[in-house]
């Protein structure tokens, strides 16, 4: 039945589906996992790094991109679509700054990206963007923000969320482990993001990329060493927790 209503983006099926939009959401699941966490004084974006070929320049394979000094985003899905959306968002950020002399709010740029995506679900001859994005940053009021957009053009604010492959597993982990204590300070929020990724990333810290934005500070990308340190700390804490547990049972 689906095949009669899934060719044209502008055609609804009798039961109200826009199949091309739903198929675009499947394309998002083909991208590697990205997780976003909104802490009290920090926002964290963690992604599963894509394996890079030997002769490929690693710097050109990035999932986390800055949109402006105070906003950055991670995406999952079609690489080329992400490039187009990011370029448009970057231009909009600068255009806004020049026009109203204020940097964009995180919500504004998220709404811009979501509106752009929605337009492509209602145009004939075009297909939806096959990406979901996690957009993080601080506004002028100093409040941290995390938004998620998807191919249909919807956007919502989140305390913590994941997109891409195995996003469901990561989201379930976050639902269990995102507590006020867990995000009480910056290092706990960072560890939470890494622990969430370690649930689905098989080769450990080597395949994780992390970026943070602290209030009134620019985007900081963690180096591989820094991530390894964090992973080692997490493993130590896990071992200690397990030792305590086994002591209690004996």
């Amino acid at each position, binding site marked *: 039945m689906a095949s009669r209503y899934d060719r044209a983006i502008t055609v609804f099926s009798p039961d109200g589906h826009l199949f091309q939009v739903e198929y675009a959401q499947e394309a998002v699941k083909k991208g*590697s996992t990205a997780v976003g966490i909104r802490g009290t004084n920090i926002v964290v974006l963690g992604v599963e790094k894509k394996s890079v*070929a030997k002769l490929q320049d690693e710097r050109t*394979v990035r*999932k986390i991109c800055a949109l402006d000094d105070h906003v950055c985003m991670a995406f999952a899905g079609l*690489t080329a679509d992400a490039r187009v959306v990011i370029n448009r968002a970057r231009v909009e950020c600068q255009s806004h700054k020049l026009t109203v002399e204020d940097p964009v709010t995180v919500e504004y740029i998220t709404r811009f990206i979501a509106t752009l995506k929605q337009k492509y679900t209602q145009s004939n001859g075009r297909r939806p963007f096959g990406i979901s994005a996690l957009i993080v940053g601080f506004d002028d009021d100093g409040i941290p923000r995390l938004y998620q957009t998807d191919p249909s053009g919807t956007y919502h604010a989140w305390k913590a969320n994941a997109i891409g492959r195995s996003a469901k597993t990561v989201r379930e982990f976050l639902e269990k482990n995102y507590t006020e204590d867990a995000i009480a300070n910056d290092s706990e929020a960072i560890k939470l993001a890494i622990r969430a990724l370690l649930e689905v990333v*098989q080769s450990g810290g080597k395949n994780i990329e992390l970026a943070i934005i602290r209030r009134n500070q620019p985007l900081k990308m963690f180096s591989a060493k820094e991530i390894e340190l964090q992973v080692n700390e997490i493993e130590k804490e896990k071992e200690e927790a397990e030792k305590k547990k086994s002591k209690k049972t004996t």
Partner: protein
Amino acid sequence: MAATFFGEVVRTPCRAGTEDEEEQEEGRRETPEDKEVRRQLARKREVRLFRRQTKTTLEVSLLEKHPCSKFIIAIGNNAVAFLSSFVMNSGAWEEVGCAKLWNEWCRTTDTAHLSPAEAFCVFYHLKSNPSVMLCQCSCYVAEDQQYQWLEKVFGSCPRKNMQVTILTCRHVTDYKTSESTSSLHTPFLKALKTQNFKEPPFCSLLEQPNIVHDLPAAVLSYCQVWRIPAVLYLCYTDVMKLDLITVEAFKPVLSSRSLKCLVKNIPQSTEILKKLMTANEIQSNIYT
């Protein structure tokens, strides 16, 4: 006669028959050229079983030449990766045959030089126990080729005292259920077995109205008809390309009677699987 929307007049089919039937039949008769094209196409789509080492075609069916008591068939890249990592590294396996076939889904045009990675369908037996056979099928076997494949592999009169285990994957969007698909925890396993298979399967049985498709369905039907105990483990996943989590979803099957004695070193198998994944992931840049 009937008029269409565009004003042309078309002949409506009539079961009573018309005077013009003979004329139509002449039009339908094949020309020698058509016959030749059809013959060439049939030859191109033929399923051939041969030994790569000796480059000789097998004269009899594979299981007639190599009778077995356990036959494990992996169809699709995730199932193949599972057997490669968890079963084939735990013993010495010898290649006994290779099925060569072509259809419109084949990407490789050079069918003369096959490597294990892109080989269509390779058959192995365990050197220490030749009654255990394994098939790694990473190509698509079209509907018209399935019967040929079965004949060339099982033969026209198969032994009944063997057990067949089939592993394959399907996209979760093909799974029909009254639950919401967002509540399904993919990947998950479902089983379907023949009447003669008495062991309890390692997961719940596939519920109606879901059906099995393609080569796994053909093998299972064949086993049902010939009363061979056979079980199919079908993994529903949302990632059809080679994926670690999907491959690991087959792990419960390692406790089955067919596979238990063949698996030795699970940590090493996990390492081999990770290497396979890395080698495969690097190739595509479309998704990030």
